[in-house]
């Protein structure tokens, strides 16, 4: 991705660079179980929610994180906005390392990174009015012109006229309106970077289009960099410039959205894309069905984590050697794949 210069060309760094991000959760954290472990000399168990994720995000770019539930995409998203402290790895925002940032840098980051959550019924405090919900981030960061900004953000989120919504409580709003309020809250600080975690999956299908077009407009007008997290590939195809497919805490395939959707190469990506329903009953296509269950996130499978369910299993190498995410000689696009099926093209990106 080195050819994609940032628009002003001034800074070399991408907006966000994630390197080897890991997040492990200890299974039994209680006092008694840790005492038991200590006396019996056992190691603590960890859930490997995110296990070495790397990517870069340019200004104004949209990246989709896809994968089945439990693959670590939400944990990745939460780590990106520093809701989790990563176990290992680096997250750089405008060249500044978030894991070692001081208070001032963190404050700067908090102003510029926001998150939109899945469930609009849970993401707004039931005891706060719309006005207070939107005013909160502004008050935290001591930003002036509170009312005018709130009015503008609500207008942008197509809640018209904004003054009518000021004193409403979340329970007085519909699901679509709530999600618009949540989006307005994310935008009121004028951020550079937004993580949208399944932004429309809890909404009625009839409301989705409206909220999605709002998010498209927001990406464009704010020149936002957005990480969309979803299991819905057709949504991601519509919204994202690039896609990263995750499986068990790792990215297995990454590249331009059209390349990946039209021509998936990793066996897991293929099965995911095949699972997307096609509205035309006459379209015949090769079905690749996934056998078995997702592997154990505590006792991670050796080698390629997908080897137990893979339809293209090619022998011992899949079980012994973990494939790295890299450019492959077979493809001339930007795609990176983590699979032994393809030959590494030597020069690593």
């Amino acid at each position, binding site marked *: 991705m080195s050819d994609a210069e940032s628009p002003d060309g001034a800074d070399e760094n991408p907006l966000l660079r994630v390197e080897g991000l890991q997040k492990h959760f200890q299974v039994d954290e209680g006092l008694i179980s840790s005492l038991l472990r200590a006396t019996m000399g056992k190691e603590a168990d960890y859930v490997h929610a995110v296990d070495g994720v790397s990517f870069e995000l340019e200004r104004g770019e949209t990246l989709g994180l896809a994968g089945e539930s439990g693959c670590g995409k939400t944990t990745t998203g939460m780590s990106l906005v520093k809701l989790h402290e990563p176990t290992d790895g680096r997250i750089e925002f405008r060249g500044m390392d978030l894991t070692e940032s001081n208070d001032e840098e963190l404050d700067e980051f908090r102003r*510029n990174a926001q998150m939109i959550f899945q469930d609009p019924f849970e993401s707004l405090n039931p005891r706060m009015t719309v006005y207070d919900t939107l005013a909160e981030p502004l008050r935290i960061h001591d930003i002036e012109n509170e009312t005018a900004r709130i009015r503008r953000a609500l207008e942008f989120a197509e809640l018209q006229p904004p003054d009518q919504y000021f004193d409403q409580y979340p329970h007085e709003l519909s699901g679509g309106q709530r999600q618009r309020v949540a989006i307005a809250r994310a935008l009121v600080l004028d951020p550079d970077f937004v993580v949208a975690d399944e932004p429309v999956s809890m909404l009625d299908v009839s409301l989705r289009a409206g909220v999605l077009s709002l998010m498209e407009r927001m990406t464009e007008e704010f*020149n936002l960099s957005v990480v969309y997290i979803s299991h819905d590939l057709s949504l991601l195809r519509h919204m994202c410039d690039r896609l990263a497919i995750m499986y068990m805490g790792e990215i297995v395939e990454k590249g331009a959205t059209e390349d990946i959707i039209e021509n998936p190469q990793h066996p897991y990506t293929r099965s995911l894309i095949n699972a997307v329903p096609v509205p035309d009953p006459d379209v015949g296509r090769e079905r690749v069905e996934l056998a078995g269950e997702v592997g154990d996130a505590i006792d991670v499978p050796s080698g390629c984590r997908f080897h137990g369910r893979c339809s293209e299993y090619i022998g011992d190498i899949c079980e012994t050697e973990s494939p790295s995410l890299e450019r492959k000689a077979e493809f001339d696009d930007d795609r990176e794949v983590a699979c032994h099926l393809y030959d590494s093209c030597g020069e690593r990106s």
Partner: protein
Amino acid sequence: MATQDKPSIFADIDDGDVDQEDESVDRWRRNLRLWRETLTEQWRMLTDDLMVRLAMITIAFFMAVAVFAPFIAPHGPLTRQYEGDAGIIIVDWAEPSFMSAESEYLLGTTAEGFDIFSQLVYGSRAALLVGLVAAVFTAGIGTLVGLTAGYYGGKIDDTLMRIVDFLYGMPLLPTVIILVALLGPSLWNILLAIILLQWRSTARVIRSQALSLRERPFVKAAQVAGASDWHIISRHLAPNVLPLSFLYGAFAIAWAILAEAGVSFIGLGDPNTVSWGTMLQSSRAYSALDFGAWWWFIPPGICIGLVVISGFLIGRGYEEITNPELR
């Protein structure tokens, strides 16, 4: 920095192009109005129930009595109305005048020569003082500890909850006996013991609420926006557990009055203060029951019953607001 190099819908606002002054919302006036709306709504819901209304009237009545006790009571609660031969206490009482007895005392007198009606009036002071102070502290300490434990979790939670567990192992009466033995018998020491043992259940319930609240996305959203821990606890957690601490406060009134009466009844009360519990205790000491002096012990019993039941009814009514499933 953020606004210089990219398009922003807020650009003209930051440049001051929009006329601000007359458009802005006055924060204080707005907050006041919202608070008033919330309170009137809750008040309407609470007073919707006839039982709750009656309970409130009862409590209000006793409050008025407590406040105006010196004007209502004809005598001092611990002033002897008559002396026996040679000035010693006599075991002799006057019967109540409202039973058309030949007596100037509305509810008669005790064997010690005290006016029962005056004692009853002054006793409401002790009862309401204990009830309200215990309620405020029970709800206050319990909520603070519960929120802290629930929000921070980990070692802080462990430590605070082990203290709560320890307090759960302490029985009320022995604690009072030890406190009274150490600090001397007074109403405040009884109150101290009651508060010490009562905040534990509030703390536990509030903690469990805080545990589930802190995982809710609106708390995450505040964290992403950079809110401090105190900001999240005071703005996001506290308002959502407030109805629950209110509920526990209302129940605490009743429990504290009962506990004070019980402790006084077994003779650990403050000898210089009259409470309904100490009235019962002295009536027992002088075997009022055996002599048929029912006017001595029935009125304080009724008063305790009325206030305690009212406290529970208000708590119950509030519970129906906080937990609509009970309706």
